[in-house]
């Protein structure tokens, strides 16, 4: 039940925002994430953004995992 999905914030109107989740536009509440900005990916749970995705951390994690995967491919 704690599932939450990344949604791209398109526009902000007070404590609410228009966000895109998998191509579908949804109205979400930013009451728990006042720091949200247009262009952020919000992690949305039951209509509320509960966290703003740290895109740099995401890229960093992926970079490390890709390196690990390419090492695994090399024989020996």
């Amino acid at each position, binding site marked *: 039940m704690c599932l939450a999905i990344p949604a791209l914030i398109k526009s902000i109107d007070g404590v609410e925002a228009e966000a895109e989740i998998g191509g579908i536009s949804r109205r979400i509440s930013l009451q*728990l994430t006042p720091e949200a900005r247009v262009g952020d990916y919000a992690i949305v749970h039951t209509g509320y953004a509960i966290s703003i995705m740290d895109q740099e951390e995401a890229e960093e994690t992926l970079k490390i995992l890709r390196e690990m995967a390419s090492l695994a491919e090399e024989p020996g």
Partner: protein
Amino acid sequence: MRFITEFRSSELAAGLLSQIRLKSRIPARLMEFCGGHTATIFKYGIRQALPATLEMVSGPGCPVCVTANADIDKAIALSQLPGVIITTFGDMLRVPGSRLSLQEAKAGGADVRMVYSTMDALKIANENADKSIVFLGIGFETTAPTIAASILQAKEKGIGNYYVLSLNKLCPPAIRAILDSGEVRLNGLICPGHVSAVIGSHPWGAIAREYHIPCVISGFEPVDILQCVSMLVVQIEKGEARVEIAYRRGVRPEGNLEALKLMEMVFEPAPARWRGIGELPASGLKLRGEYQQFDAELAFDIVTEPACEPEGCICGDILRGTKVPQDCPLFASTCTPEHPVGPCMVSSEGSCSAHYLYGGSLAG
């Protein structure tokens, strides 16, 4: 979809799996607390893909499953009161209480409505001034701030006919209860990602230290889970016991301070009943005195008969990790997702439903 597909990459998963196979020597049992993790693990066949040294057990992390029957009975009793509209997240509808489910109550004429968000429940309250709207406050720390936010909004906007039946639960006390009981020996914890997005990593750090058990916070995609397992294996092999965040894109060590602030404003810790575990002190949330007017428990005279568990159902043992669904004589015979006997078969995050849908046959 960005930040989803990348973390489903089979190439990255393969890289992590080979790391895990390479490093894991000490036999270890890992528990995923969260039902969302259980669903991912089963859907992607992660259990079967791990080396024989690693055993995975599911924990009690499904808010629907851990709701005690006595509390479901309360919700049903509320739905029978004149002028009451019950609003709830979908999964709760089909959970059998002692005598009825909410869905059956609805078929019998009760006004029970499924909502996606507390904002929808507030809207219903706004549009039905002559009715009392009760929201069933089910959920962990991920959901509690959204319920707190709705109560603050109701107060601000003067919505006097909105009430919450607070059945919210806190995760760290439940994990402590499982570790204290010693019923299952555990060597590592896969900690819930979105609960931790709110509470941060410190509560798990305390558990890691006190119980000397590695704790790693994971996201919900298959690559997230494998990364988490790989980090746990490294700690286990080194004999370490720390908290680490694998899900760094979503979780900060301090959590979400704004969400914690709202939660703290509206709620205070209270004892809560957990299915299978029993009553645990300070593991639930009740409304603070200033917000009493929104407390369904105080606003209505809720009369229920003594609760009883569905006959033969062993959900309680499964939630503690001491039994698996296949141990239940009703599993897949009398009890199926179409006709669930217990909550673990209703919720998509329940262990019985995960075993039923994805079984043990998927590999890789």
